[in-house]
């Protein structure tokens, strides 16, 4: 698959939240206002991009040469946990203002399915280093797009006359379902038509 194809796949066609349900917990939990949604989105994009590259390198240069592929899950989750900690320390030192914006979201990201998910998908799909980076970056971008759209919908929903039982999480799920319905327009045929497969 071409590099442009990878980007379109992970932003639209198999959007992490609306098609694959990866990272649904923060999507529902942190989408109450648009400011924190943007913060969470940027933090996730940053970590998925870096984690894709690092996990790819760990797998190709450390696990594969010694036939330790079965340790993939254990190795990746440790790499991601260490990476998130490192990113947190670096950001705190380098840019206090960025830390203020992203800081509270970083610890939550270790247990975000999206990060481990993209690391594993990269290996399963057999992307190379640049492909892995692009997949990670665009998966994060797709996540950011979905969570920002969702937060805007939820800000409107706050003042809407919603039945009591549906208030909060249930109506958020139903709105997400309607968004997913719209995203079905981006299917695999789109990639074929654009000649990107």
């Amino acid at each position, binding site marked *: 698959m071409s590099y442009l194809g990878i980007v379109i796949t992970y932003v639209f066609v198999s959007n992490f939240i*609306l098609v694959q*349900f*990866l990272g649904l917990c923060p999507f529902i939990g942190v989408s109450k206002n648009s400011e924190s949604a943007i913060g969470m989105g940027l933090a996730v994009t940053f970590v998925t991009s870096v984690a894709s590259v690092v996990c790819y390198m760990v797998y190709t240069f450390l696990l594969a040469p010694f036939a330790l592929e079965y340790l993939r*899950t254990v190795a990746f989750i440790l790499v991601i946990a260490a990476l998130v900690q490192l990113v947190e320390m670096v950001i705190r030192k380098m840019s206090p203002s960025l830390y203020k914006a992203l800081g509270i979201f970083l610890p939550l990201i270790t247990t975000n399915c999206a990060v481990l998910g993209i690391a594993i998908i990269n290996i399963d799909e057999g992307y190379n280093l640049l492909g892995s980076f692009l997949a990670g970056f665009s998966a994060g971008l797709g996540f950011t797009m979905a969570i920002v759209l969702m937060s805007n919908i939820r800000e409107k929903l706050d003042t809407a006359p919603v039945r009591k039982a549906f208030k909060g999480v249930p109506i958020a799920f*139903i709105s997400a379902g309607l968004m997913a319905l719209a995203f079905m327009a981006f299917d695999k045929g789109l990639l074929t038509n654009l000649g990107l497969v």
Partner: protein
Amino acid sequence: MSHKYELTKGIFKENPVFIIMLGMCPTLGVTTQVSNAIGMGGSVLFVLLCSNIMISLLRKVIPDSIRIPAYIVIIASFVTIVEMVLHAFVPSVFDALGVYLPLIVVNCIILGRAEAFANKNTVLDSALDAIGMGIGFTLSLILIASIREVFGAGQITLFAMGNFSGVIKIPVLNGYPIRIMTLAPGALLLMGFLKAFFEFNTARKAKKEAKV
């Protein structure tokens, strides 16, 4: 708290999927077929039971400051075992679960139970808690998967055994399935309606108790 309470609370009162809302990704991702739901539920039950017992045994040994990484390594080891076993014995379920299988590691239910329960309680209570939560999770998955598969494909897929092909066809719906239910939007819509039903139910019960 009695032992019986530890076992049964996971099924209704503290149901991990509908009440605590943990572990949503696999819940919606794999529930296109009942057989996948059973496979996923069983895997989570196994990992939850083993990791809860292990963490409960080690609760006095693991230093407090590095407990989360320690839990993650224990959980990841058991997930790797499940991956290998499923790959060897039920490859069809292994393929269907795909990326969601290794993602059990970051399933909030397992880490959540380790943090909230297993590191404070005895081995027996932790094991009972794990079994209850695991069964609650599996039943919720089977409920969602049955609704999605019956309406979306007009059938129920179980495991093939002897003469039984493993697929039960539902007469009318089989000819006119509502395809959207097995696709992504159907999962999100159904989850919204089920959650609303549970909220409604909880509110009604609270009202009843207030009256009495």
